[in-house]
């Protein structure tokens, strides 16, 4: 099994949810994140004082997937998240040892 993590632009969340749903993904976890990549931050002005704001708001999406589905799932997320502009984010996956569905106690692929 794999844990796929995507850091994306907040306004792309709905598109990604839609795409994952069409792919057959039943559930995901979303959290608000902030950070920067190569685009760094942006500038804000308050009463003439300029502030460089390093950390840009992002959305972190986490999805668990079967090994067989993982690559395709990543492609689904990437194509839904892409705007081809700077700051589109990143997607990665890591191996997962075990997964348990809390309600039933099912383990492994059955718990996905």
């Amino acid at each position: 099994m794999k844990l796929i993590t995507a850091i994306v632009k907040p306004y792309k969340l709905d598109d990604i949810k839609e795409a994952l749903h069409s792919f057959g993904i039943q559930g995901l976890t979303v959290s608000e994140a902030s950070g920067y990549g190569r685009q760094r931050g942006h500038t804000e002005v308050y009463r003439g004082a300029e502030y460089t704001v390093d950390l840009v708001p992002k959305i972190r999406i986490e999805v668990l997937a079967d090994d067989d589905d993982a690559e395709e799932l990543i492609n689904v997320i990437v194509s839904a998240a892409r705007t081809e502009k700077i700051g589109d984010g990143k997607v990665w996956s890591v191996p997962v040892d075990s997964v348990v569905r809390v309600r039933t106690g099912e383990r492994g692929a059955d718990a996905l």
Partner: protein
Amino acid sequence: MASAITTLAADTPTLSAANTGFMLICSALVMLMTPGLAFFYGGMVRVKSSLNMLMMSFVSLGIVTILWVLYGFSLAFGTDSGSVIGWNSDYVGLSGIGLTELWDGYTIPVYVFAVFQLMFAVITPALISGALADRVKFSAWVLFTALWVSVVYFPVAHWVWGAGGWLFKLGVIDFAGGTAVHINAGAAALGVILVIGKRVGFKKDPMRPHSLPLVMLGAGLLWFGWFGFNAGSWLGNDDGVGAVMFVNTQVATAAAMLAWLAYEKLRHGSFTTLGAASGAVAGLVAITPAGGCVSPLGAIAVGAIAGVLCAMAVGLKYKFGYDDSLDVVGVHLVGGVAGSLLIGLFATGGVQSDAKGLFYGGGFEQLGKQAVGVFSVLAYSLVVSAIMAFLIDRTMGMRVAEDVEVSGIDQAEHAETAYDFSGAGGGISARPAASHAPVAAANKKVDA
């Protein structure tokens, strides 16, 4: 209803129900300005010190009200002695005042005048607090407020508005508090910050407003309440001057907001909400002394000049390195000085008094008087406030510890957090509080 209205010109004024009702409403409007100011300032600080900022304004409603009833009204508006201070034992505790006893020369009861003026005394020290954001012990602030109104505000209000006060006798025009309120508070703010110093991270860390909507809400409440502050300062409206003041308040504020926005668009590239709110307040400040002696077109000039001057002045703190956190000096001192001096240029001689400004053929006479008013109040308030801050700092300490300031003054001084975001990841602290054994026990159960 015309029979109920008595004119100021009448030899013996009688009580006017219309003016009394109007003035009670104006008093409530001015009261609302202090919570409005709390929001205006509270939104401008970082979230970790937003409650402290709100409280610094709000507590003034408590402290100053009590002091005003006990002795403040008597010091400011009692019988003059030496043109510097008043005293009237009937006013002590507001206990010797007759129900229908009229304020001398006017058609409203003394009680109404006392409560209207109280609201001015409440908001003036609250204005200072914006310069002291994030870093002053609440107990020290409470003491400072009590001392400051007693030694600075009550006497200065007497100088400017009290019958027999020396600036009043000199002919300095201050319709609603450009000198007594705004220059007074702005100069005090400068005096205190020169003593207590900068916030940790000033000019290094980003200190962004945590809630601009709150700032806009506060500016809106200030603008609304300011109609009572300004139009009410004529203590009735038998001759139409109060209505002119009302109109000029709206006009100057509009002009100042637009002027600030235009300035920052040209200078920094954007129309900001903070700029709109700040410009409006700058206009309100500037028209406060001047609104009773200028025409509506003059009010546009006063507002526009103040809007640009204040927008330029807020940058000075970075140049000179003093931490006027929320620009009390840049907006209230500069705006108050601008409005007070512009009387000397734009007074038409046809509204509040027959004194004419330079542009209306009055020469430099009124401008000179205004300058005396401005600089005497500025100097007195600056010096006395600095001494006061120094003494408090040397005894009980003005500032919180550096680690408290960095982690946030709200939790240390008020044991509260402004916004509960536990739905997004907070929740019950797993760390047991040493002094609360039952809570610790409960948490232990959760952990197990």
